[in-house]
Structures are given as structure tokens and as C-alpha cells.
């Protein structure tokens, strides 16, 4: 599903954060990437999403080249899902409207939205605004919004790190079930080893600007 080949990246006037990195992720696989802050794991996620342009390398999603020396497909055309630590919910939209933001208006839209509201147990919050709901409920909304678009790959950047332990455990169980049910390909970036081992088929660690499978 995802194939990264010889990827390198640096920020302006800085050293390489990613150096000749390669990675292959199969359909339905959940991959975790571990590493301390600033090691390059979020950069890798942003590069896959198309939000950051790498120095060189090649990225293929579902056998289609999304980046190489001549091609750079924009994020809106890569069919991905993204959930970040601070959720980035649209504050002016209700939970319902946040969830349907990325899907086309059609007859199935409402039905699909209801399904995901139920799946993430937030149907009672659909008319509420992000500031009116709890942190855990915000994270459920963000996950629902990302998954409802049926993305080829779901990119998760420390999605549970702002939650307390109890809530985190509860969400871990539920989301893993959904990932498996929907046969999602997931790239999870975290600094929590227990989280990575709970979710993942394979775990990688950043070392010397490259990924090392552990």
C-alpha cells in the first residue's frame, strides 16, 4: 500500500532529519514509528501526507507515485486520513459537520455520517461544537472525520498523547477494533512503546535518520 524509497529530508539551513529512508507497508497493516521528539517521525508523516516536500526519494501509495523528482501530488489528492495530537477540529463546525467535511454531498452522506457517529459512540454529540465536548470526544470526532473518507492510509501523529491513562486505554481498545474491522492501513507515530506494541503488526524506531525495525 505504501512504499517509500531512499527518502531524504532537511529543513532550511539544518542537518538531514531523514536520510535515505525506505519503508514498505502492506494493505491492512498497522505500523508504529517510535522515537524521541525532533527525531523526524512527524516530518515523515507530513511528507507522506504531502504537507512537506522532501529533498529526494520516491513515495508510492497504492502503486501510484505521489512523489519523486518530477512528481509531487498535493495532499488533497492523495486520499489519506490524518489525525494529530491536538485534533485540529474545525471550531466553527458542529461534530456532525466536522465528520462530513471530507466527503461528497450525496444521498449516502447522511447514512454514512450516522454510521460513523454510532461507531465512535458520539451520536448524542452531533450538534455540539468542539469546545463543548471533552478531549476524548474530540479525539473520537477527529478519528471519525479521518476514517469516514475511506483513506488508503490513515496517518496518526501522537493521537492519544493528550489523553489521561484511563481514557487512553478505552480509546485504544475501541479504535484498534475499528482499524481491524475496516481493514485500515495505519501509520502511527508515537513515543509510547506500550501503545505501539498494542496497536502494531510491526514497530520501527528512528535511528540515525533511518528506520530500524524492532
Amino acid at each position, binding site marked *: 500500500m505504501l512504499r517509500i524509497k531512499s527518502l531524504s529530508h532537511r529543513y532550511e539551513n539544518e542537518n538531514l532529519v531523514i536520510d535515505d529512508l525506505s519503508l514498505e507497508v502492506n494493505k491492512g497493516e498497522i505500523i508504529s514509528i517510535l522515537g524521541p521528539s525532533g527525531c523526524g517521525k512527524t516530518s515523515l508523516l*507530513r511528507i507522506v501526507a*504531502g*504537507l512537506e516536500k522532501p529533498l529526494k526519494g520516491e513515495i508510492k501509495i497504492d502503486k501510484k507515485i505521489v512523489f519523486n523528482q518530477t512528481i509531487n501530488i498535493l495532499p*488533497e*489528492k*492523495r486520499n489519506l486520513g*490524518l489525525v494529530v495530537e491536538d485534533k*485540529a477540529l*474545525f471550531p466553527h463546525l458542529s461534530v456532525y459537520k466536522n465528520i462530513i467535511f471530507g466527503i461528497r454531498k450525496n444521498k449516502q452522506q447522511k447514512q454514512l455520517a450516522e454510521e460513523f457517529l454510532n461507531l465512535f459512540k458520539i451520536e448524542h454529540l452531533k450538534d455540539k461544537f468542539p469546545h463543548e465536548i471533552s478531549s476524548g470526544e474530540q479525539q473520537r470526532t477527529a478519528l471519525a472525520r479521518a476514517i469516514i473518507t475511506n483513506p488508503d492510509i490513515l*496517518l496518526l501523529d501522537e493521537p492519544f498523547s493528550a489523553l489521561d491513562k484511563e481514557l487512553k486505554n478505552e480509546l485504544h481498545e475501541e479504535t484498534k477494533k475499528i482499524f481491524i474491522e475496516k481493514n485500515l492501513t495505519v501509520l502511527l507515530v508515537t513515543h509510547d512503546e506500550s501503545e505501539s506494541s498494542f496497536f502494531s503488526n510491526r514497530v520501527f524506531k528512528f535511528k540515525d535518520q533511518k528506520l530500524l525495525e524492532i
Partner: protein
Amino acid sequence: MNYLYLRTFSFWKILPTLTFVVFVSPLVIVLLSLTGDYSDNWTHLYNFVLGDYITNSIFLVLGVGLISLIIGTSSAWIITKYDFFGRRILEWALILPLAIPPYILAYTFTGLFDDYGSANEFIRWMFNLDSSFVFFPNVRNIFGAIIVFAFTLYPYIYLISRAAFLNQSKTLTDTGRILGLGGYRIFINLGLPMIRPAVIAGLMLVIMETLSDFGAVDHFAIQTFTTGIFRTWYGMYDLHTAMQLASLLLLFIIVFLVLERSSRMNAAYNSPVSNANSSSSEKLNGSKSFLCFIGCFIPIFIGFILPILELSRWAFTYNTGFFNESFFIQAKNTFLIALMASIVCTVIAFTINFSVRHTKVIFLKRINPFLSVGYGVPGLILAVGIVQMFTYLDKGIFVGFDFVLTGSLFGLLLAYLIKSYALSNSTIESGFERLSNKLDDSARVLKSSGWNLLLRVHFPLMKTSLLTSILLVMSEVVKELPATLILRPFNFDTLAVSTYIYAAEERMFEAASPAIAIVVIGLIPIIILTRMIKDSKDTPYLK
């Protein structure tokens, strides 16, 4: 402009580039006139009046700078450091004079202090003096102009100094006290030197406004660059020489613009402490409290209360058709052109700031500040440049359309856009800064970009900033005089133009209604600013 920029053209890149070209062209055209031929009129100006323009302008700038510096910094210091009777009201009331354009204060000053003005009449009535007795000196001179400018423009320095004083550490002033410095010496030796870059930024704004003015200096018959440009054009009918004169003034303005920009940057870097350690005020009682009250009240009285009283007296005592038909026509014209300019300006600023954020092209980020330089350029220079640019276009591109651009509303609209873009840009830029980039990232991954992202995410979240921008630009446009005077289409009078014409004909009482309307509209940004003052410790970017 890098290779990638050229390779991938899109609306988001074309709009800022095109706006840059349109905004800068009139100024370039004015400056290019320096390379052309110099006529006999120029020789006449050079030999007989250019010296007066320069000395008068320098004298005016020095006088206005010094007085507004004293009023602005001392009132800001008193308001920030002391708690005294009336402070809460004076804190925001000190910016009220910003609602009065200098030319309106000039008109009311002559109405008040001329030999038979209301102030002299009042003194004669009060002390039962002879009708030939004159108490107040003549204000129709450069000293009167200095007072007029200083009392309408000091709020620029007050606002910027107050914000800087608020961020000053109390520890520093406490240390000064332990070392034996009194309140006044702490202000002179510690407070003021530490906020020097901020004060210079405010001072540059005051100087640019003074050099840009036409209405007040024209009313007081002072020969400056702006009156010279106007007379060369409308008296000698020599646009080319007027442009050459405008170029000289523009060069001066560019120097002050550069100084203002660099001082503003230094002001940010020099902020000595965080807000957490900022000053708290010292409670004053008795005579000290009264003195502080009087010290802060006088600028408000001269710069706002006195002109309002005089305008009201004109309007109500001499009730010469306060709401007559022509007033409503002028008010309608003013409102419509101001609304049009403010909406177009806000849309352009919103779209360009979105382009900068969305495309992340460095070239766009670099040209955006240049789009704001128009705020410092006198309306008269813009008018000269726009007329020349439109003449070139009418003769070169729109041949056969009978001067479709020259003398149309387009010129006026363009002048307002160039002059007010900085107001819109600063409001919208700060609005965008408050929006997390992660919202954009999420939206883009959810297949929303370009117009979709702009309209579905940014527009609803930026409504307050957009409305603020519209109001700020409207109030600026309503006050603008010289550009309006020159660029308005035939028979298109606005409130500012009508005030000017009445005052020029010494029909002061009839000038009251449009002048009051201008002041009332000018109060809108003041209300916005006072709200900002209550919460923010940052300097509100004024112009």
C-alpha cells in the same frame, strides 16, 4: 522570483503579483518623472518657492514631532505608571483626537481663535472688553499648524508608548528609585530611553501624516510640498512639474517609511521583559492626582472636545440646513465609495494573505509588506501617479474609449485601496496568525484546498477580522481629502470634499454637518481600538 514560482502559475500567485504591480506603478511613475525634462515652471519653483517648501516642511515636522512626542510619551507614562482620578476614562479618551482629521481641527481653530472667533468673543463677553480686543493670537500660521497637527496626531505616539511602557519591568523602575531617582527622572532616564525604538516608530507615523497633509496647511496658507504640488497642477496646469515636486516629497517619505519599519522591528526585539513581570501602577491622591488628571485632560480637550463643541455650535446655533439635500447626496456618495473600497480592500487583503499562507511561496511573503507602503504615501502623490498612469493606459490601451479610466471612480477607488491596504492587511494578517496551521493541514488531507478551504474554513473563522478591516478602511476613506479632491469624478462630492470647499469659501457653519459626520464615522476605529486597549498589551497597528 524563483524557478518554481514561474513554473507553476495559479490564481493564488497571480493575484498578489498583479496587485503589487498595480499598487507600485503610480509611485514608480511619479519617481520616473525625475528623469524627464525640467520645464520653466520647475526653474521658477526651484528659484523662488522650493526653499520655502523645504524649510516650512522641516520646521513643521520638528515642531509637530517635538510637541506630539512630549504629549504622547508623558501621557502614556502617567496613564501606565499612576492610578489617579479619571484614569480609566482618560486611558481610552486620549486616543479620541484620532477621529478628528487635522483639516477639521484647523477649520475649527480658525472659527475659535480668529479675531471674531468664538473664543475671543467669549473672553470679551466674560470680561466685558472692547470689541477690538483680541486675546488669543492668530492661528493662521505655521505655529497654529504645529498645534493642530500635534494635538490630532499625538495618539500615534501615545498608543505605541503605552504598549511599550506596559511591558516594562517594575523591577527596573524600582531599581531606579532605590538609586535615588524621582518619578520625573525615572521617566526621562529610564522609561523613555528603553522604549526609544517604539517611540521612533510612532514619531515616524506622525511625521509622515504631517508631510502628507494638504487640508490643514492649505487652510492656514502655509507653503509646503503638498500645497505646492496642488498649485503647480491646478494653478500652473503643469502635471509633469507637479510630479517632479511629488517625487521629492516621496523620497523624504521613503526615508521615514524605512525608519518606521526598522524601528518597529527593533521595538519588538527590545521588549525587555515578559508581561508577567510588567509594571503595576502607583496610587495617587490629592493635588498629584489632580495634576495628572489635568495633564491628560488638556490634550483631549484641545484635540477633541474643543473642536466638537465648536462644530456643534456651528451646526445648532446657525442651523443653515444641517440635513439638507446636498448633505444626504454627499453622505450617500461617501458611504457607497467607502463601503466599496473597504470591501474590495478587505477581499484583496484576505485573498493575498490566504495565498501567502496556502502557497508558501517565499516571493509572495516578501512582496506582501511592500503592498502596505501606500499608507505612508500622501494621497496627493498617489493621485498624481494614478492620473498619469490612467492617462498612459487611456492613450495606449483603451484608445477609442474616450478616456474610460481618467476621471472615473476607478482612480478614486485605486487611491483608497493603495492608501488603506495596510489597515486591512495588518488586521487580517493577525487574524490568520491566530489560526493554527494544523487546521489547514487537516482540511487539505480531507481534500479541501484553494477556494474550498478559503470559503469553508478560513472565511467563517475570520469574520471578526474581516469586519474590523471593513470598518477601519471605511473610516480612513471617509476622512481622506487630497486624493478625493483630485480624483473624484465630475459632480461627485463627498463629505470630506464638501467640508474642504465650504471651509475654503469661509462658509464654516455650512461645513459643520459634513465635518461632524466625518468625526462620527472616524470614531468607529477608535471604539475598536479602545476595546483592544482593554485586553491587549500589544501595540495595535494603526496605519
